[in-house]
């Protein structure tokens, strides 16, 4: 990139202040996502009468271009703008989720989507990045001038959790709650409170285990050598071995339900082998840890908390998805950020990373920012 450090145009300043290591890792993950979309697409579109084709992959190419725009755009925002955009996104996402509940189509028993022609948008995906930024803003204000930040944070968590539970989407609810607890922890919540919350969470999980036969089934499957999907996923990893069976040559993907979304990691394993899988895990690790450390180094609590919270959102989702594929965690449907097929998830992840990259940009202490 031929940009002078002395160049003060908007783009040059962005380029020299953004975390280029994280950005490169994110772009790498997006490229791998497209590669895998081409590998998984024939299986996802194969319906007996019509042979599988690349229509999923072509669509995903369009999604990726849009996502890139969202991410770069969001990373240009300053702290104030980030907060305002997050507030607007939170409101829109919540209203969208309510509308999806009322008028959205029923997909496998859940009402999460709004239909725009052939495109399905899942508004609740955008709650996570927006909530992360807003919670950071409340908690940072508390530190600065005694604002009741915890109360406001929980006050915003409640409507989001209620709508997610009504859809129902237990996975997203858990994810959002964990992010909230983590941010309270970052903001200095005493350890005995964290301990109490941990005990409470364990209690809720136990309750869910006894009340929901579905949850019990998943756990017992996990304990007893895996369910059908995870069993096949393990076969896919095993079949892939060191070198993989080759792009497009995988056979298990044709029988693996959700090969292009929740189990894309297994397709990567079968076709491309251990190196690509380890690369994906390493890239996620780099993005998560880099963004956390850059946030930690910020001079103010708001970018510290927001950056770390958003990084955690990405890292946690990636870890759960990969952990489920590898039978390290019990089965829970969750997409692999930047890699699974689907527009909504990709756009929301792009917004999350865009906010995080923007918040972790190097900033000289400018008078107007120091005041805020």
């Amino acid at each position, binding site marked *: 990139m031929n940009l002078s450090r002395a160049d003060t145009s908007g783009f040059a300043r962005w380029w020299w202040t953004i975390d280029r290591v994280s950005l490169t890792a994110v772009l790498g993950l997006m490229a791998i996502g497209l590669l895998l979309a081409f590998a998984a697409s024939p299986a996802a579109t194969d319906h007996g009468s019509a042979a599988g084709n690349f229509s999923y992959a072509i669509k995903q190419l369009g999604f990726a271009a849009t996502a890139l725009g969202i991410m770069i755009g969001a990373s240009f925002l300053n702290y104030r703008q980030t907060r305002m955009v997050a507030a607007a996104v939170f409101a829109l996402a919540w209203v969208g989720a309510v509308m999806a509940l009322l008028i959205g189509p029923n997909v496998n028993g859940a009402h999460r989507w709004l239909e725009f022609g052939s495109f399905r948008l899942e508004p609740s995906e955008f709650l996570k990045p927006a909530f992360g930024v807003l919670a950071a803003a409340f908690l940072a204000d508390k530190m600065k001038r005694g604002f009741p930040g915890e109360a406001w944070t929980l006050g915003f968590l409640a409507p989001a959790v209620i709508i997610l539970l009504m859809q129902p989407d237990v996975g997203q609810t858990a994810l959002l709650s964990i992010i909230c607890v983590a941010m309270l922890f970052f903001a200095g919540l005493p350890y005995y409170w964290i301990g109490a919350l941990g005990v409470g969470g364990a209690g809720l999980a136990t309750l869910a285990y006894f009340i929901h036969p579905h949850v019990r089934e998943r756990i017992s499957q996990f304990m007893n050598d895996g369910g059908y999907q995870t069993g096949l996923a*393990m076969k896919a990893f*095993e079949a892939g071995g060191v070198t993989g069976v080759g792009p497009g040559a995988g056979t298990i993907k044709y029988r693996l339900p959700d090969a292009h979304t929740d189990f894309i990691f297994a397709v990567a394993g079968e076709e491309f082998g251990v190196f690509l899988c380890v690369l994906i895990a390493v890239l996620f690790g780099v993005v*998560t840890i880099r963004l956390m450390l850059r946030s930690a180094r910020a001079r103010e609590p708001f970018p510290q908390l927001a950056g770390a919270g958003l990084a955690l959102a990405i890292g946690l989702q990636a870890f759960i998805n990969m952990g489920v594929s590898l039978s390290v965690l019990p089965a829970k449907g969750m997409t692999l950020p930047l890699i699974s097929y689907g527009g909504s998830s990709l756009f929301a992840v792009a917004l999350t990373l865009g906010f995080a990259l923007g918040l972790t940009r190097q900033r000289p202490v400018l008078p107007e920012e120091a005041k805020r």
Partner: protein
Amino acid sequence: MAKRPVQPSLVRNRIALAAIFSAVCFSVIAARLVDVMVLGAGVTGAITPVIVHPMRADLVDRNGVLIARDLPVSDVYASPKVFWDVSEAAHGLAEATGAEEGRLLAAFAPKRGYIPVQRGLSPDRREAVMRLGLPGLTFEDGYKRFYPSGRIVSHAVGQVDTDENGVSGLELGLEKHLKGSKDGAPVQLSLDMRVQYVLEHEMEEAQHAFNAKATAGLVLNVRTGEVLALASLPDYEPNARTLSPGDSIRNRMTQDVYELGSIFKIFAFTLAIEEKTVRLDELINVGKPLKLGNHYIHDFERLGPLIPAAMVFAESSNIGTAQIEMRSGPTKQKPFLKKLGLLDPLKTELPEMASPLYPRHWEEVEAATIAYGHGISVNPLSFAAAAASVVNGGTRVRPTFLKDEKVQDGERIISEETSRTMRQLMRLVVTDGTGSKADVPGYDVGGKTGTAEKAENGSYAHHLLISSFCGVFPISDPQYLVFIMLDEPHGNKSTGGFSTGGAVAAPSVGRVIAKIAPLLGVRRTDTVAAANP
């Protein structure tokens, strides 16, 4: 700077703690990947078999006779890595499952991956594989579609793929019914297997006797639109995975279009009678070929010179029919054929449906040739539906393959009066015209013969014919239409060497009617007369 709160260092420490925790988590993932993919510490036991696809509902005929059913089968897969003797495993598995030993050996040799051994094993073969006692086998239990009647009705019913998704015929067209059937209730078709056996038997006899390239046929209820039987020869064995030589999955009744020739005169006369452009006793000059532009219209045999219009139909004169059609002309003819559904692709539960072909430039000459069925190509099922609409009292019939005994209330196309006159004319074809061999005493068959020359390299080939007969019974109050068509029949001694529709198709239609009328409970007209002298 002094006023800056001290918390950021606390926040910094706690985030750093989270970063360390994240590093541990991702390291666990990486370690697990290496463990599973390189060191092979993955699952060793067989995975819990789960039925992937819900069962498809049974297909039954209108009387509940079974046409298609899912039977339990298993797919077996192998992880050759754990075989101690690859060639022994390949040999045993080949013996037990019928899979090719060479293929298995080649696939097992690298001792890695996950190899499909055989699909669709019956329960006893699965048992035989179990008895081998080999490690590293996975069974996936599912279902396989079985068709107890084999080749009979294969084209209408169609097939499913190895994953039980419909790929052709009603299996595809009724996919939603078959997959969404509540508590596995069977899907009941309009087909009547007894009628189907009779039709296919007669078609096979004709196909063999006249050495035809292909034969197509159907039996249609002209009031309810229900298809009782539909067949196309050559057919295929739906229970086999591959086609035998000479078999064909092509459904000639729906997938191909033909210039059907003189049976189209039904529509020319219907239009003329509806429009009152002809009187049945009016004398028409058919003495010499009709010149149209630089094109001559001929008759098969020399008639006339002057014959009544009714005999133009009964004796199937092209010259006479063309003259009568030209009184209405293309501006009347085209919308009329459209109303009969002959210019649009037919919509039924069968997905394989060819669209009709007709001239874009449709003037006098085209109108004259279309009057006797040349210059327009339709699939035979569309023709049969249109003919049924003419004889049933004049309302549009839309064929269906689902049992529905309600009389269709299609839109009116012609008056009842015209329909009655057409039935008289079709009876005349059998009593005094080209279709005499289709008559069945007591069932008052009416009909029309068709003999078309096949277009070849831009002109018509005199020896390559499409010969057909469309019969309706009982003609006074029609209930069923029987249609049989032969592609390139060769006349034999019994027909005096003739290969025309009246010679090769009409006798078969007559025999089908004679056999199915009692089965379908159609009353003989002569017994009624005998009972009331």
